[in-house]
């Protein structure tokens, strides 16, 4: 720093700061210090390489107030911690954790303890430095090269020129009489105490540079911009997935929405190609448009491609996914046609005369035999389910005279359609698959029972209906002979 001394300053000798004596040992220092203190001097200090015990009394150092700083900081830390915890968890953002009360004082103890220690420790160190006047990078002693050994192996005793009994000659002779290795005058450090201008500029420039990022952030916060935000790391709500109804270059067809992967089964459509769940065999049903579509569906779901069209890929595979829904066999027009042809109040033989296709029921390859084993258990299940779901309208005997039908007849409302008599010849002639289809999809006023009955239960009901029909139209020859029973 002395390089920056202004040349115009007159080379006047610096003011005296006192005298210092050098010792090789802490014992010599202590003896000398006691002697100096006994001579009445108060502006004295010792400089030592380590904390010499006994020097405090020897030169009359008063105890420090440092512990009070620590105590206050400790209370401050404790108060801050407990207030913070209480306010944050019980007042500003209260919520229950592990069934503990909002103000869970026992759980607040660890953080309160840590902050007490944190505040006290930092205050202790900074108060120590502050009371010592540190950092202080210049001192009258530092200008003497001998003084460098104070942090090595030399002990110095100093009598200040500000002492009220200070007399340069007397002090010098007193110190010499203590057996000092050397006695030297200490002069004030006259090097300029101003911080050199380049350093000030550097500090200002540094502060300005550190302000730039903050200024940019502030500007960005207040300015409007059409640009999307910069994300170094994406938050969880910010995902790189594409929005619906947009395009992408990732797929050949440019569409973001993808068809289901081959073999996908829609919810509730498990076994959609299985005669067991359909009541007909879709692979043999090729005569109508809807049947063609069903065949395509089978092909698509089994192979992932439209039959006979292997080259088109993803785009082509969209087609069958749409068509089956359009060709839903219970299409509204068909049902409506059936209802119109039915004559209210008349015997329910209306649709029996019309061809099945005209009534809106597709001409499928109906199953003619039960796809399940017909045993007593099945019939018993079928009876149970029939009486539960069917008998209300169709009657326990299947004549279309259930309780609901009787009540409707009593009310004699014009729009009531008489439930079908299951013993009509047309119904009796229906293959089992057709009856199953009716139960599954409903017919006329009758709704679908697919949600109420599993396929197995439906087949059980079909078996029971068949058994019911047979029982009501039995011939004497149907009665088993004794021989048959014996077998």
């Amino acid at each position, binding site marked *: 720093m002395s390089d920056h001394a202004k040349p115009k300053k007159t080379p006047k000798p610096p003011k005296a700061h006192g005298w210092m004596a050098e010792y090789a040992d*802490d014992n010599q220092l202590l003896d000398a210090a006691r002697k100096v203190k006994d001579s009445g001097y108060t502006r004295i*200090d*010792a*400089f*030592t*390489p*380590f*904390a*010499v015990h006994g*020097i*405090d009394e020897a*030169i009359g*150092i008063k105890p*420090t107030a*440092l*512990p009070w700083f*620590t105590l206050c900081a400790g209370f401050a830390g404790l108060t801050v911690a407990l207030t*913070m*915890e209480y306010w*944050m*968890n019980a007042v500003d*953002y209260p919520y229950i*954790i*592990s069934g*503990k009360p909002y103000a*869970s004082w026992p*759980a*607040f103890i*660890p*953080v309160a*303890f*840590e*902050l007490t*220690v*944190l505040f*006290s*420790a*930092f205050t*202790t*160190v900074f*108060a*120590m430095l502050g*009371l*010592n006047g*540190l*950092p*202080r*990078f*210049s*001192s009258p*002693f*530092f200008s003497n090269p001998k003084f*460098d*050994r*104070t*942090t*090595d*192996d030399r002990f110095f005793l100093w009598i200040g020129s500000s002492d009220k009994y200070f007399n340069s000659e007397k002090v010098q002779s007193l110190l010499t009489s203590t057996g000092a290795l050397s006695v030297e005058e200490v002069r004030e450090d006259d090097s300029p105490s101003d911080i050199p201008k380049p350093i000030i500029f550097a500090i200002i420039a540094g502060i300005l540079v550190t302000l730039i990022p903050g200024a940019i952030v502030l500007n960005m916060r207040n300015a409007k911009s059409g640009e999307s935000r910069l994300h*170094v*790391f994406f938050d969880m709500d910010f995902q790189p997935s594409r929005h619906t109804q947009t395009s992408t270059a990732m797929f050949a067809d440019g569409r973001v929405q993808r068809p289901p992967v081959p073999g996908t089964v829609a919810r509730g459509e498990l076994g959609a190609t299985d005669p067991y769940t359909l009541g007909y065999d879709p692979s043999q049903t090729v005569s109508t448009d809807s049947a063609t579509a069903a065949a395509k569906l089978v092909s698509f779901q089994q192979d992932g491609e439209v039959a006979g069209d292997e080259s088109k890929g993803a785009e082509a595979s969209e087609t069958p996914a749409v068509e089956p829904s359009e060709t839903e066999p219970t299409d509204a027009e068909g049902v409506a046609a059936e209802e119109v042809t039915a004559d209210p109040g008349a015997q329910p033989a209306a649709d029996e005369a019309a061809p099945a296709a005209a009534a809106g029921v597709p001409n499928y390859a109906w199953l003619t035999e039960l796809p399940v084993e017909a045993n007593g258990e099945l019939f018993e299940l079928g009876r149970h389910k029939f009486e539960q779901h069917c008998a209300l309208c169709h009657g326990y005997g299947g004549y279309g005279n259930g309780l609901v039908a009787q009540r409707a007849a009593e009310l004699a409302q014009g729009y009531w359609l008489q439930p079908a008599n299951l013993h009509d010849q047309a119904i009796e002639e229906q293959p089992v698959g057709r009856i199953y289809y009716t139960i599954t999809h409903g017919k006329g006023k009758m709704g679908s029972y697919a949600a109420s009955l599993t396929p197995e239960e439906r087949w059980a009901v079909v078996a029971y209906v068949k058994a019911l029909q047979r029982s009501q139209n039995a011939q004497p020859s149907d009665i088993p002979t004794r021989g048959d029973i014996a077998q």
Partner: protein
Amino acid sequence: MASIASPAIDNTIDIPGRRTPLVLGNQTYASVTHMVARISEEAQPAIWWIAFAIAFPLMLMFGGLIGYLILTGVGVWGNMSPVFWGWPIVNFVFWVGIGHAGTLISAILFLFRQNWRTSINRAAEAMTIFAVICAGTFPGIHVGRAWLAFWLTPYPSLNLWMWPQFRSPLLWDVFAVGTYASVSLIFWYMGMIPDLASFRDRSKNKWRRMVYGLLCLGWSGSSRHWMRYEKAYVILSALATPLVLSVHTVVSFDFAVSQLPGWHTTIFPPYFVAGAIFSGFAMVLTLLIPVRAIYNLKDLITPRHLDNMCKIILATGSMVGLAYTTEFFMAWYSQNPYEFFTFWNRAFGPYWWAYWIMFSCNVITPQLFWFRVFRTNTVIMWVVTIFVNIGMWFERFVICCTSLSRDFLPSSWGYFSPTWVDIGMLVGSFGLFTTLFLLFCRFLPIIAISEIKWTISQHAHSEHRYKHGHEHH
């Protein structure tokens, strides 16, 4: 260094009626300054460069792996249901445990007037800081989105509009480890101030003088400064003593406050603290045995220091062994089937190998230190400390992984397997730790010069009184 020919004193033996010297070889104040300061003034020995050439790339690898983790996600670790606390937490607890020795030596041994601490406290404190740096890294990156780790601090957030949950041990941990790291750092730095002034005053080079002059804050050695400094040191020791015990207690709460068998136990705080001191002293010895050989500090870090540390390792190792057996006793005595299964599973389940590595390294190997011959042989001592380090890592692994991998529901049991990233991060954290320690040796006073001088002075006074007393008889 020329010194007066002295008879070879074995200072591991106490001489009745006399104070055993803590510094050998007729040291003077100047010789102590020189012996410590020359380490940073002279060119480093070849072995320093070799160690640095190994440790520094490992540190860079650690940084690279953290970058890889942040860019990819925590899936690069082996953490998988049900073991969500895998190696990152094992490493965290391991390093935090090691970080206990420094402050213990500085604070607790200071309060107990154990003057032998003066030769080892500086290096141990430095080791503490570096271990806590390694430790703090792991939970920081374990939070998943490491760039949002600052959400752990209670700050008024514009985005969250909520506050941390002060009933969680994990948040206590943030405060405990944060306080411990910062208080240890400032304690370490304050202790170095007079020694940095020694470095400054020995500097021949203007820049070196300026840098050390800034670092020592213009320390002049004034008695008034020393008085406040000493007072501050006592107060800090009194503050750091409960602090050092609280840190691993809070770390153990991370486990003990949960409901998991093997974790939910009141023995954890003392058991963790004993283990931490145990591993910390082992690491201090692992570092100081080579350091005193390389830098020829055998007169300052004497056999007596090593001997004392071995005794502490023996004591704390036996405490840890007692904790292990107490856990088993409680598992049986509690008659809790889950608790019993957990401990049976630790010793004889799929992780039996980890358990027995832990048990043999931590409980059996330190028993060698009952014998003086092992407490004075630095090679055997060093090997034992390595075993202790290994054993203490496995202790944390056993606690973390065995309890999590098999809890109440057998259907959700699993087996933890680390990935190469897990292994790389453990190795890399050692690289970070070693690099920092090597730089510390290179640039800072690795022994508390002023405190050693004080013990020399004390010894001179006691010898004086001893001789004086004899004359009177």
